[in-house]
Structure formats: structure tokens, C-alpha cells
């Protein structure tokens, strides 16, 4: 079916059919978004909300139960994202809190064109960029040195010390520039596609691809040079 025939069929269909075909009008790009979105939709079974849009509308009207459900649902994801964005720093929870406040404040603007998760990712990223700009020189100093020192000692008790490895990965990711960091985290941690990342960060797909490639290469070099990572590698080989 070509675009014209899809449009005509959509015009005769119900509102529901029209919505589905509206995605398809953009072709390959949005089909991909739909297929990844399917796995990431909020489980609203056995709740009184019929859809994510309905939930968002009620939350924007100030209904406490809707807002609390939203927070319960998004907190883990947002905190996880913020922990990587801040490189595991002390301000991860502050950033997560500010992001969730921004999400609740702007929940009225959610139109259901993407999933709630993706929409929340975008708000979180925007909050992170603002947060990053406001930080003082002293805090930037943290990031500069953070890769080579932490509160914990530089050894692993066992090959299975995955949390320690994740902490170090967060620190290493934290040394990348904000834009590269965002692309990398959205791709690997949140499982977003290139198209989705481009949509979230308001950039072109090719730009995202370039940033990802450079970020991965930079990170790869840091991982291979990092003493803790080398230690873990040796333990694994034993």
C-alpha cells in the first residue's frame, strides 16, 4: 500500500484506525517506534485508567491517586537514568526529584503520541541539561576527577561484584560530554532506538549515530585502561 491509499483508508475508518494509520504515514521510522513502544507501555490492567493518556489527563487535573500511580510507576526508571547521567554522583536523587516534579508539572502536555516512558525520558534529559548548566566549576571538578577515585576501595571481592562494576561504569560514563552521555545511556540503559533518541534529544538521526559511535569508542578506551575494570577482567578469566 502506498501512502495515498493508506490515507484514504484512514479517512473512512474510525478514530482508532485513523490513529494507527497516522503512525504509518511516516513509514519505516514510526513503525519502528511503535514496535519498540509496544514493549514499554504502562501496565494499566486492573486499574481504572483505560490508557496512558487517560492516566495523564487525570494526573494533570490534580487527582492524587493518578499522580501517585504515576510516581510509583516512573520513579525507578527516572532514578536509574539519573544515576547514569550524573555519573553516580551525590546529586542523582536531586536530579531525579527535579525530573519527576517536571514530569508532574507538564503531564498535561502528554498527548499519547509516544509511550509514557519515552515521554518521561525526554523530560528527564531536558531537566538534566538544565541541571548540568547550573552546576558550579567546583562541581565540574568532581566530574573531572571522579573517574579515578571513589569512596570505595579499588578492589573487587569477587568476580560477581557487579554493583561495583556498574558504579564504575556510571563514573566513566559521567566523564563523557552531556550529549554523548545522553545518547549512550538512552541507547544502552533505556533501550531506545536511534530514531527515538533523535526524537527525545531534538537532533538528527545521523548526529545521534555519530555521537553514539564516538561515545562508545571513548568509553571503550576508558574501560580498557581502567584499573578496576582490568582487575575484574582478570578475575573473570580465572
Amino acid at each position, binding site marked *: 500500500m502506498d501512502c495515498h491509499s493508506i490515507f484514504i483508508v484512514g479517512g473512512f475508518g474510525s478514530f482508532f484506525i485513523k490513529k494507527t494509520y497516522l503512525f504509518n504515514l511516516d513509514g519505516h521510522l514510526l513503525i519502528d517506534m511503535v514496535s519498540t513502544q509496544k514493549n514499554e507501555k504502562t501496565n494499566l490492567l*486492573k*486499574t481504572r485508567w483505560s490508557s496512558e493518556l487517560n492516566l495523564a489527563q487525570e494526573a494533570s487535573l490534580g487527582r*492524587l491517586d493518578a*499522580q*501517585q500511580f504515576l*510516581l*510509583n510507576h516512573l*520513579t*525507578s526508571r527516572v*532514578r*536509574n537514568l539519573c*544515576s*547514569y547521567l550524573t555519573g*553516580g554522583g*551525590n*546529586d*542523582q*536523587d*536531586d536530579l*531525579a*526529584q527535579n525530573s*519527576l*516534579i517536571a514530569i*508532574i*508539572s507538564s503531564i498535561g502536555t502528554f498527548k499519547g503520541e509516544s509511550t509514557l516512558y519515552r515521554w518521561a525520558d525526554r523530560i528527564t534529559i531536558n531537566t538534566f541539561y538544565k541541571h548540568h548548566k547550573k552546576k*558550579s*566549576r*567546583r*562541581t565540574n*571538578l*568532581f566530574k573531572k*576527577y*571522579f573517574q*579515578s*577515585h571513589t*569512596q570505595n576501595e579499588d578492589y573487587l571481592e569477587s568476580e560477581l561484584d*557487579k554493583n561495583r*562494576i*556498574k*558504579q564504575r*561504569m*556510571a563514573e566513566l560514563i559521567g566523564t563523557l560530554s552531556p550529549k554523548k552521555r545522553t545518547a549512550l545511556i538512552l541507547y*544502552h*540503559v533505556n*533501550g531506545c532506538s*536511534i530514531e527515538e533518541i533523535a526524537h527525545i534529544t531534538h537532533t538528527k538521526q545521523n548526529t545521534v*549515530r555519530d555521537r*553514539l*559511535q564516538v561515545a*562508545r*569508542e571513548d*568509553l*571503550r578506551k576508558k*574501560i*580498557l585502561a581502567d584499573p578496576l*575494570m582490568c582487575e575484574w*577482567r582478570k578475575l*573473570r578469566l580465572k
Partner: protein
Amino acid sequence: MKSTDCEKKQALYLKENSLLSQEERHFLKNHKKNCDDCSFTDDIFKMISNKEEPFVQPLDELSQRRWNQDILIKYNNTNQVKTKTKGARLLIITAAATLLMGFISGLIFSSDLLNKKQDLAIESLPISDIKENQEIKILTSGQSSLLSNKEKTNLFQKEISTNENPMALSMGNNIALLLEPQTKIKIEANNSFETIIRLIKGTLFANKIPFATATNHFEIITTRANFEVKGTIFEVTHNSDVTRLRVLKGNVEIIEKNTQNIHKGTSLQKASYPKWEQHSLSQNDQNLLINKMKTMDLFEKQNEGNLEISSTPKGALVFIDNQYIGKTPLVSSIRQGHRMLNIKKENFQTVTEHLNIAPESKQSRLFSLETLSAPLLVKNEQEDQEKASTDTQVKPRATQTQAASANELKNMMDKVAGHRLRQDWQAAALEYKKIIARYPNTPQAHTALVSLGLLELNHLNQPSIALNRFNLYLRKGGPLSQEALFAKATAYKILSNKNSEIKTLEEFLRRYPGAVEAPKAKARLKTLK
């Protein structure tokens, strides 16, 4: 493995599977087998992509509730502030623009302002502009109370010493100090023109934000040398054996007392008496200084709240966000935000709590530490639980080994979470009852009273039983008292007990006037009256 192969592999990584040629797929498969580096880095990326094991563990029920409350309160406050300050914002923008124009004009017409030398700045500042004795604020103290934030703290010319706990001071002039334990200083001057500290003994960590005030002169004096600071992060140690400087960032001039020779201390360098030769800071030194900076960051005077922590027994180590801040009893200003509090003492169980420090808030915590050797269960008190419980089949267990009990309790909590997720309220309620019956007097059982009560109230249509549970919880109190009290009012509403509902709502509004449910409670009270 050739590095070009690795680069080729990286380039192909982002290409969609369906778009790869046969040759490219073959190359990727072989490369992964043969290249240890790429295989290792790929495994690490897989680990961080694993959604079943996120980096940050999900919050438990209690912490999630608190988290939600904090966010909703802040969201409501932000909304109120936004409407009030719209006009004020316009005024501020206009004033700022006018000031900026004035500053730029001053820069263009005055060459003195461009001169960054301290000497010139000293000559140009009129004496009438020097404000005497700027407010010094103690940000953390091992004593019973901090001096009030509103009072002007007059520590000028007095000796300030620390014992076991570190102490943070905010000097104004964008200078912050951290005194290590067993340190003694004297503040010789602290005005808009200069800050001079005499380090009598011990270690002083300082942070002066550069160019914040161009004219401010900052100097640390010891018996062996003076340290003149331009705007930097550094530490000075002075005692009978050693005088040493470690600089994390910036420049410090070291002026020898007897000879007046000048040496330099620069970023990531250290120097010590008598030779003052510069040496690089070791990784360990850098780590230590960075940790001190993190600690200072906690105390920094910026929308801080006041936190008082005590424990039985005393002398427990207090960590906030993994930074050691002192021993109990302790009073401290802590920067606003979500903080993780850990209380540790040898032979006692570590206590962890999530705090939310609101600006200008005052919080007090008293922790009764449990010994490590004590069993998880204490003597079973059945009386209160039996009144509330309708399930007589579950009987309390005898004392168990601590590890097995903790594991079982954790499993039960996980089961509850699973039931709640599937919205199987009956099963969740049963599990809660088991926890309350088998592990009474544990924090989990106490919290479960409220959770179970809410289930019975909202989903199982048992308001009278729920009411008993809320009363039981409120008798002892706890962090969920606010929620329990509001739910109690709801239970009375369902039971059509008007008078009790009015009393409960009035008590709720008296105790928690700023609660998220307060507007709802007020509206309901109005309707009832």
C-alpha cells in the same frame, strides 16, 4: 587483534541487523570470538543494558511513599510560587538588565577594575566600604545545638577548636572551611576586605570560589609560613612536627616567616616545611581531598536544613551520602535534597534511612541501636495483634537465628510486593497478617499495620478492622502517622461516624497543616460542619 578490525566492528555495531551483508555478519561473529577487548567491553555494555538488574535498586514501600509525598509537596509549593512571582520576575529582570548595563559601562571607563592584582585592589578600596566582622556560620557541630541561623555569630578573635568531630564553617565572602578533628584556629579578620585565619594546630581544608569578590584577601597564618590564597581548593596541616600544603586546584603562595621567601603551591601539588619543594599529589592524596570537598558540599550554605542526630548508645559514626560527618550526638546544617543517612557503630547493627532535607527545616532523629548478637525477634506480645487480627491460624514463631529470620522476612516482603503488583489484594492482606503475627515489634510489622489497613479500607471493604489497625499504629507512632491519621478519618466516613470523623480531621489539620491531603481534609470538615 588489529585495531582497524576493532574500529570496523564499532562502526558496524550501530547498523541494523537486517541491513548487514553476509560478509559483515561473518566478520562480526569471528571478531567477537577472537578479540578479547571487544568481547569484554561488549559484556560490560550488556550488563548495564540488563533491565532485570538496574543500577539503582527500586525503593521499598515506605521509602516510595515518602518520596512521593516529598515530590507532591514540592510540586504544590512550586505551583504557588509560580503564580505569585510572575510580576516580581519581570521587575527583577528589568533591574538585572539595568545593573548589567552599568557594570559594562564601568568596565569600559575604568582601567582599575581590569587589574586583577591584589595589591592594586587593596589600595583602591575605600575604608568606609569595609564591613566589619562578617557573619560566620557554624555548619556542623558535635555539641547539643547549633547557633541559630538568624543570629550573628561572633567568633571573631576567639579560638575555635574541634575534638572528635569535624566542623564546617561558612565565612561569607564565598569562603568555606572544614576543620578536621583535633584542630584549633583563631579568626583574626573576617570582613569584606580580608579573611585571615591563624591555624594553631591541626588540619584545615579550605575552598574559596575565585573571582567571586575581586578585592577579598584570604590568608592562613601558621608559625612557620603564611599561605596567601588567590581562589582555590586546598588543605593546610600544621603541628609541632610538620607544616604542609596540599593544593587540589588553583594557586597558593607560601611566604616563609623568617626569610620572606615566596614559594608556589599549584594544582595537584604539595609542598612542606622546610624546603617547600613542589611534589605531585598522589592518587591517595587526591582521593582524600576530593572526599573532603564532597563533605563540604553537603554542608555548604545553600538552602540548607538543620539536622539533629542522636543515638543510644552515643558515639555512633554518622554518614550522609557516604560522607563521614561526625559522631553522635551531632547537629548539622545539611544541603537540601534527598540524602541517605547511615549510622554505624562497632558491634551494633547499621541503621540506614532516607532523609529529605527541606530548606530551613529542622529535623531530629534518635536511633536506638540494636546489638549485632541480639536475635531479630524479641518477646512476643500477642495481645494487641490478636484484637486486630481475624486470622487465628497463623501463630507467632519462637526465636530464630537472625540470618534465617531476616531472609524469611525479606521473602515475605517480596511476596507482598508481587501480590500488590498483580492487585491480588486478598493474598497481599494475608501475607501482611503473617508478617505482623510472626515478626511483631519489627519495623516491617509496624509499617505493615498501615499498609494492611489501607488494603482493608480501600479494597476489601473492612473499614472497622482497618480502623483498629490505624489506631494500633498511631498508639506507637512512626513515619506513617500522617497517612494513618488521614486514613482513620476516611474509615470513620465510611462507617458514617460523623463526630469521630470531625475530631480526627481536626487533629490531622492541627498536626499536619502542610500535608498534601490538607486541602481535602479542610473541604470535608467544612461539609461536615
